[in-house]
């Protein structure tokens, strides 16, 4: 009898010592503190007003935000939940020769490891399905995920990533979009051309337009890669039920598309997938496609436990989409009083390692590139090229901020050369109700001139004229 107790006590001591941070069972705090908010619910008068349209109505979710009671994905916890982290390639272009996960798998507290070859259909994308869930054979940018780990704590998951050994064979790479355009450039997604989408808008006859112009101006502009930087990083939790249904709580902004992507990559019928994205801390276009969701779902299936993944701030920069840098060349022919007769635009978009939302961005940038101006003779050509850099995707404006910077800087240059007030040259050329757009559409509900005049009035533009 005494013998048994000794063994029991010794086992217990060893267990506590080696596993103090590796608790295999429930890891939630025992008691959730009470939530404090006013007993009497204050309903703002403005929310009780009819009619409702036009009211400066306050937001019910705004109240929860101010109380700190909004539960974002990282604030949620499920019984037995594990934490997942993804190993990033750190090399811009390579073939993966070998991935050795044995040491990571043997770590106490690591419950599962996942690599690209375990993904049933390892490709996705809003248009071209050229992006892998986890890189399998090839790495196309330094932020590519190459393996994933689910462990009982986030810290253990991060340590396990270091223990995953990946052998790379470095391959040539191309980083500059103008280089990537050349015929002899390294082909990022060989054998396909680096130019993965193009767009043309042709209207009237630009040669005739330039010939009829009193002055022709040229300008070249370039914008940089920036990131959405939502304060809340990408986050998701995957949970399965015994009927083979997976529920994914996610920061995804497009849940219908997300569900379709999960269905495709995991080979599941659509009605076995539930995506819940009720609370998100900012998106700006960067959370509009799946990132880690299929990885978490598979890790959850492997381990039989809910799995949460939250991107680090570094991953937000290197492993999520960014804004397309664009190189923009403009040539505009005007009459001597500043009326635009012809415009030629060439856009080269840095399309990063994968297509993502590039086709949409290309299309919008091209259509918008002429500016909100009446132009009878127009040629706008746009190209997007692969480079071995972070993938470029949807970001607030889809190419519009870039081309607006170009066409409005260009407009001011023209105004300066002709000694015209920048406001006046815009009023002269701006769309009116019924004007044709660059694609020949008859525009309705047009308000360019109204916005110009109203802003100028408010600012005191005429008074401030240097």
């Amino acid at each position: 009898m005494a013998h048994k107790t000794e063994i029991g006590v010794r086992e217990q001591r060893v267990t506590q010592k080696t596993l103090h941070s590796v608790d295999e069972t429930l890891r939630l705090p025992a008691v959730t503190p009470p939530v404090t908010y006013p007993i009497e619910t204050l309903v703002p008068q403005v929310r009780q007003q009819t009619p409702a349209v036009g009211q400066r109505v306050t937001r019910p979710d705004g109240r929860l935000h101010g109380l700190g009671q909004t539960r974002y994905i990282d604030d949620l916890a499920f019984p037995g939940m594990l934490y997942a982290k993804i190993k990033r390639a750190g090399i811009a272009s390579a073939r993966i020769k070998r991935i050795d996960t044995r040491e990571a798998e043997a770590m106490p507290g690591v419950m599962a490891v996942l690599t690209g070859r375990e993904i049933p259909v390892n490709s996705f994308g809003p248009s071209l399905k050229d992006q892998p869930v986890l890189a399998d054979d090839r790495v196309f940018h330094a932020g590519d995920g190459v393996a994933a780990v689910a462990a009982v704590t986030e810290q253990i998951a991060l340590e396990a990533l270091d223990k995953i050994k990946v052998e790379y064979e470095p391959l040539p790479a191309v980083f500059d979009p103008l280089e990537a355009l050349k015929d002899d450039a390294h082909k990022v997604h060989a054998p396909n051309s680096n130019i993965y989408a193009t767009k043309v808008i042709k209207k009237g006859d630009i040669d005739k337009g330039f010939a009829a112009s009193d002055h022709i101006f040229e300008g070249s502009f370039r914008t940089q890669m920036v990131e959405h930087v939502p304060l809340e990083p990408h986050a998701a939790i995957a949970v399965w039920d015994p009927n083979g249904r997976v529920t994914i709580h996610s920061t995804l902004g497009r849940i219908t598309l997300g569900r379709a992507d999960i269905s495709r990559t995991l080979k599941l019928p659509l009605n076995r997938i539930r995506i819940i994205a009720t609370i998100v801390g900012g998106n700006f276009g960067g959370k509009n496609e799946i990132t880690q969701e299929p990885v978490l779902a598979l890790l959850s299936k492997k381990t039989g436990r809910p799995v949460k993944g939250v991107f680090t701030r570094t991953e937000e920069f290197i492993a999520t989409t960014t804004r397309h840098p664009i190189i923009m060349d403009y040539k505009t022919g005007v009459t001597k009083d500043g009326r635009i007769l012809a415009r030629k635009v060439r856009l080269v978009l840095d399309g990063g390692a994968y297509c993502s939302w590039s086709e949409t961005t290309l299309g919008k940038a091209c259509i918008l590139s002429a500016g909100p101006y009446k132009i009878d003779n127009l040629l706008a050509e746009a190209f997007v090229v692969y480079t071995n850099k972070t993938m470029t995707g949807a970001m607030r404006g889809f190419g519009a901020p870039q081309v607006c910077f170009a066409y409005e800087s260009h407009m001011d240059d023209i105004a300066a050369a002709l000694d015209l007030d920048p406001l006046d040259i815009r009023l002269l050329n701006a769309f009116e109700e019924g004007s044709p757009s660059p694609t020949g559409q008859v525009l309705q509900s047009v308000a360019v001139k109204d916005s110009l005049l109203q802003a100028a009035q408010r600012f005191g533009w005429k008074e401030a004229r240097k």
Partner: protein
Amino acid sequence: MADVTVKVNGKLRTASVPPETTLLQLLRDHFNLTGAKLGCDVGDCGACTVIVDGKPVNACLMLVGQADGRDVLTIEGLATRDQLHPLQKAFEDHASLQCGFCGPGIILSAKALLDEVPNPTVPEIRDALSGNLCRCTGYTKMIEAIQAAARVLREEPAEPNA
């Protein structure tokens, strides 16, 4: 393991945690007070701002040992069963928060300011918020709300166009 005792929102709380645990982890994972957020984990974004002994602090940079024995105010400690804190009410009325993720940190930075400077100028408000990043709002309606809340706390009548 480190044994810590912290007064959180007026109540004494204790925990036994690894010494490298941050105050942010202590609040979020051990006390389930998830108002303070993880935005960068290196003290650059301010989403984890809490008030420790009256001063606004990035909780992700403070180890539990440094928080031991101190007085911590989190967003969950502002409202009472009777009313929202004037900052919370003003932020709601002025639609100062959009996605809300930076909200708890911003409101606590504002509270720390108003506790010291009851009638702050706009530059003083901007300065107090300079360690809190917000991507959604441009800070404009936050500044308006902080001025409105300051007036309430000073027990002044509202401005006609508030």
